């Protein structure tokens, strides 16, 4: 069966520090991968998505970047965090086509 792993669950980082959040998927190949951010009490904002290794689409200009070094690995990074980067980050995958998304359990990032 397919599973998605996202870590860490919580993270407190100082302003200006780097960030690396990792997401891996098991039990499937060539998934579409997504990074979303959710501010407190708000909807989900799509940050990046990838339909294949090395293929990254950015949805909004920001302080973040994404990479897909392997088929089932999706990494969200920042060189220098800003206070506004605080939020709940969710990774998700879907099979090619119009199927449902499976979300990870999320990372709560607080930038202080």
């Amino acid at each position: 069966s397919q599973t998605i792993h996202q870590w860490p669950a919580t993270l407190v980082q100082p302003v200006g520090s780097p960030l690396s959040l990792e997401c891996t998927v098991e039990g499937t190949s060539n998934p579409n991968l997504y990074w979303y951010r959710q501010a407190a009490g708000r909807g989900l904002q799509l940050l990046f998505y990838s339909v294949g290794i090395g293929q990254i689409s950015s949805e909004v200009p920001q302080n973040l970047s994404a990479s897909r070094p392997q088929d089932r690995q999706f990494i969200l990074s920042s060189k220098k965090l800003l206070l506004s980067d605080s939020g709940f980050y969710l990774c998700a995958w879907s099979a090619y086509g119009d199927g449902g998304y499976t979300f990870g359990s999320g990372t709560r990032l607080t930038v202080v």
Partner: protein
Amino acid sequence: SQQGEEDPQALSIQEGENATMNCSYKTSINNLQWYRQNSGRGLVHLILIRSNEREKHSGRLRVTLDTSKKSSSLLITASRAADTASYFCAPPAGEKLTFGTGTRLTIIP
């Protein structure tokens, strides 16, 4: 741009009652999906309804889709305390799903 908008923003009902949430979207779709999010957790896929379907059931969930009005509704029957969560509709935009701010449903025991 495509985005689902849920209505109402918040809903409180007594346990055992039915809960109805509505969704509107902007552009034509092949399908529409509904998700649930418990507080502080990831989203869980509930149901997908295709554009050629008008109604779909899954357990206590009933989803309708009216493509002419670009709207959908989610009905939860015989609500339970465990149904307390935020509910999102998600119309696709190409390879992506877009989400609104959701309906916050509270079931009062």
